């Protein structure tokens, strides 16, 4: 092999940039080995958490010494990617902790579960750091394939299998869209590198390249659950095991958003209005859909759609005004960090309730939760208020930053529409709070005695993070 090439690819910079991925991959391999040896198998949780923390440590190191481009300019470990990496790892860890309680009774293939779950953040990191459409594609598949399996992981429940299948079929469709778009772009420009593509875009794309970009954007909107590509969300979120839903709702969305923000420069400038319109329509679809739900998991799924719409405003703002790229990225990061803690906490509570056998996915059955399990109800209230963007929670500042960027990009009408939508959102979040605190319990259920220390710790950390981001946001804003 050419020694120059080796130097070019395997230097210290490259090692630092890839350290998070390599750590996760190493952990994944060790998990596979651990399956063979019963004595080591007990250490599996340690291995999992260790890999996540190791990867997080590597990401923090990258925050201080970012690497803009490695591997021949196909992968970037800049500050934003490192922050995104931390968001993904947090989302995975929350999902994993709740999965431990969730599967305690049924224990199906916990080893496989952990392996698949550990592969997901690798895929997300590659998506967020990709500077090349091929790298993004590999990341997308590395994320999606484990998720297909995880979504149908509860084979004893037909809804779970249905969710997995739905997610697979629609995911395959969106991947198909993506590849078709890539083919068109390549045919038109002869390159897959984002750097080269942005030069080509500056010189003027051919119509074929524009069509290709439209396909690529479409597939990203699928992952982001944007109207009209959002219809799979409620079914899949509801059917999938709740811990997996956590990952899909937070991590996947963040990864797709990170890459979308990276490629806005390749879209025509006139698309800003269209994207903003899609954002508002998504908010409308999500909020109006959530308004009529009686199932809390579905309600949160629709609310996730609405949040995706809010996030898309950032994409539109970044497209409308090229100067706002830093502001849009930091707003997106803060929003997603808050959303991981908030939605992760809320879905986590649902997983906890389900694990306790309360079948608590109906809003109806939450009645009287405020008296039965006051701590849980208080945490749920906090998460819902944060989703609604009430101050002193992370959700408020997240909303502030998004609307601030939107107004700076002179998308005033869309910002007003978005604000009006969040009134509808509060209406259904309040409905849940009303059920928990203000309506009498239909039948008295004794609180289960089983202690779930891990779920409790995860919920407490999420709640603390939500409050911290709301009251002392500089802790997070300083990082960005």
């Amino acid at each position: 092999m050419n020694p120059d090439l080796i130097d070019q690819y395997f230097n210290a910079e490259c090692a630092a940039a890839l350290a998070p991925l390599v750590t996760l991959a190493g952990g994944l391999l060790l998990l596979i080995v651990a399956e063979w040896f019963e004595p080591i198998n007990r250490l599996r949780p340690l291995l999992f958490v260790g890999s996540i923390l190791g990867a997080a440590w590597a990401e923090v190191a990258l925050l201080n010494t970012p690497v803009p481009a490695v591997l021949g300019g196909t992968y970037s470990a800049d500050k934003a990617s490192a922050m995104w990496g931390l968001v993904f790892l947090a989302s995975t860890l929350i999902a994993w902790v709740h999965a431990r309680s969730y599967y305690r009774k049924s224990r199906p293939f916990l080893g496989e579960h952990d392996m698949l779950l550990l592969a997901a953040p690798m895929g997300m990191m590659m998506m967020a750091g990709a500077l090349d459409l091929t790298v993004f594609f590999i990341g997308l598949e590395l994320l999606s394939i484990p998720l297909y399996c995880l979504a149908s992981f509860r084979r004893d429940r037909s809804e779970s299998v249905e969710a997995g299948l739905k997610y697979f079929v629609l995911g395959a469709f969106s991947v198909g869209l993506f590849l078709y778009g890539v083919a068109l772009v390549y045919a038109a420009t002869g390159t897959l590198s984002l750097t080269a593509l942005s030069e080509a875009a500056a010189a003027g794309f051919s119509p074929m390249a524009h069509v290709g970009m439209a396909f690529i954007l479409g597939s990203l909107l699928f992952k982001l659950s944007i109207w009209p590509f959002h219809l799979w969300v409620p079914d899949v979120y509801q059917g999938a095991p709740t811990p997996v839903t956590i990952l899909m709702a937070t991590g996947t969305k963040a990864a797709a958003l990170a890459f979308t923000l990276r490629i806005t420069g390749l879209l025509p400038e006139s698309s800003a209005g269209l994207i903003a319109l899609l954002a508002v329509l998504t908010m409308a679809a999500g909020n109006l859909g959530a308004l009529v739900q009686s199932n809390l998991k579905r309600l949160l799924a629709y609310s996730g759609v609405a949040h995706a719409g809010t996030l898309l405003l950032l994409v539109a703002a970044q497209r409308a005004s090229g100067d706002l790229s830093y502001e849009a990225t930091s707003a997106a990061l803060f929003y997603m960090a808050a959303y991981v803690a908030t939605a992760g906490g809320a879905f986590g509570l649902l997983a906890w309730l389900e694990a306790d056998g309360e079948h608590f996915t109906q809003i109806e059955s939450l009645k009287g939760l405020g008296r039965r399990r006051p701590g849980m109800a208080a945490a749920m209230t906090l998460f819902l208020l944060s989703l609604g963007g009430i101050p002193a929670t992370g959700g408020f500042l997240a909303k502030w930053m998004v609307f601030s960027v939107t107004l700076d990009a002179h998308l005033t009408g869309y910002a007003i529409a978005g604000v009006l939508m969040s009134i509808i959102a509060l209406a259904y979040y309040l409905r849940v709070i009303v059920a928990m605190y203000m309506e009498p319990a239909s039948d008295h259920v004794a609180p289960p005695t089983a202690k779930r220390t891990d779920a409790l710790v995860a919920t407490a950390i999420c709640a603390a993070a939500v409050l911290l981001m709301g009251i002392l946001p500089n802790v997070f804003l300083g990082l960005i």
Partner: protein
Amino acid sequence: MHNLTLLTFLPALGALIVALLPNRDERVLRGITLFVTSVVAVLGVSLFCAFDGSQSALQFTQSVDWFTLGKTNVHYEMGVDGISILLLTLTAILMPFVALSSLGHITERTREFLVWLLLMETGMLGVFASADLVLFYFFWEVSLVPLYFILGIWGGERRLYATVKFFLFTLAGSLLMLLAVIALVSQAAADGVLSTNIAGLTDWASTTPLEAQFWLFAGFAIAFAIKVPLFPFHTWLADAHTQAPTSGSVILAGVLLKMGTYGLLRFGIGMFPAAAINAAPLFMILGAFGIVYGALLAMAQTDMKRLIACSSVSHLGYVVLGMFALTHAGLRGSVLQMINHGLSTSLLFLLFGALYERRHSRAISQYGGVAAVMPLFAFFWVFAVLSSVGLPGLNGFVGEWLILIGTFQRSPVLATFAVTGVIFGAVYLLSATRRLLFGEITHDETRSLKDLNTREVAIVAPLCALCLWIGVQPGVLIEKTSGSLDALVQRVEDTRQGMVVGNLVDPQTEEDVR
């Protein structure tokens, strides 16, 4: 630690203690709440006494770096001027009485109630004490949540409807204000004002051209008009008041509505004087209309709490009318009327609450001849009613008088129209009083009613004394506000001069006002 911070967060600390205390004895929890609110009241009064009314600058200020949004620095900044010190003190004084009155009607989930009550106090005090726009917005929305729970859990039979209506109405306003706040902050940042300090933003905003001010003013004004509530945004008030438990009604009437009028004064007029001058005729008309409309609504009510709620719409019409007259007298009267309405309406709610606890009916027709069995109640009730209708010698008179003078200077027609509200006010409150207290005892249950007990007298007597004191000595309060209000009038007049010179204003509008 600074006085204002201590004052604001002491109740939150109390809430934490009440929430986490392992002791399950309700009396201990109530005792802690009463103690904390009383300490806050004492602190509030001492701040009031130490406040120098001749100055217009903020006093007792404190500023700490908080966080950075883009290029803008947000500070944790506290400080009060002559307007906010009055409302701050009113809040601090009212809360121990609210806590004491809750003993009568909050019988279940007491611990939760006390936690919300204390958090509510922190939110309200914070609104009046914050000197940073973002901090203000924080407190503004945070104060919404506790009241939501107080109304929703301990309210009357249709509480859920009223609660959600209240929350969504005010939230709609808050979110419009949020957009205005964000737009204001980002435009100011583009102009080089990189702080969300209210004084700094005011200096910047009040000199921007009229077109720029218009939309920002509209965003703020709608939010505050909903909170006041100004006609036509008043419909949430009657439901919320009626369904709220007594303590909730008192908080709503006594303090929460003042947050709206305070905001109009501080942000609407203070920050956007040019837009406010242009919008003044509209607001004066809405205010005057609200006075009469609220009074007419009140006349038609058969439910006592609804009647008091409608009277609030009427009384707050005066506040808005006097405020947008933009004269020395009008503004002074308006601020004074905020305090007066807070005291006398709270009194009415507290007294009727005591009656409601005995009979559990809000219908006026259920009563009659109460004075014969409850003489103490009758005395205090009549006192509160007279203070509310503005009998000379009691507090209500001074505020209304100043407002009418201020309005007359600007527009005799509107002043004449508004004066009819005084008559209507006397009509509905006195006739309700007659039906409530006097005449034959029509229901047997009334005969066995017990008069006010020591606790209830201890709640209402000090407030009545305060009403009398303000009625006799209004100068003390007016003096405290004079520095701030003079500065405000000065700013408005300067803007008016600039507008006339620059022909920014349509002369026709000026004519209309006169």
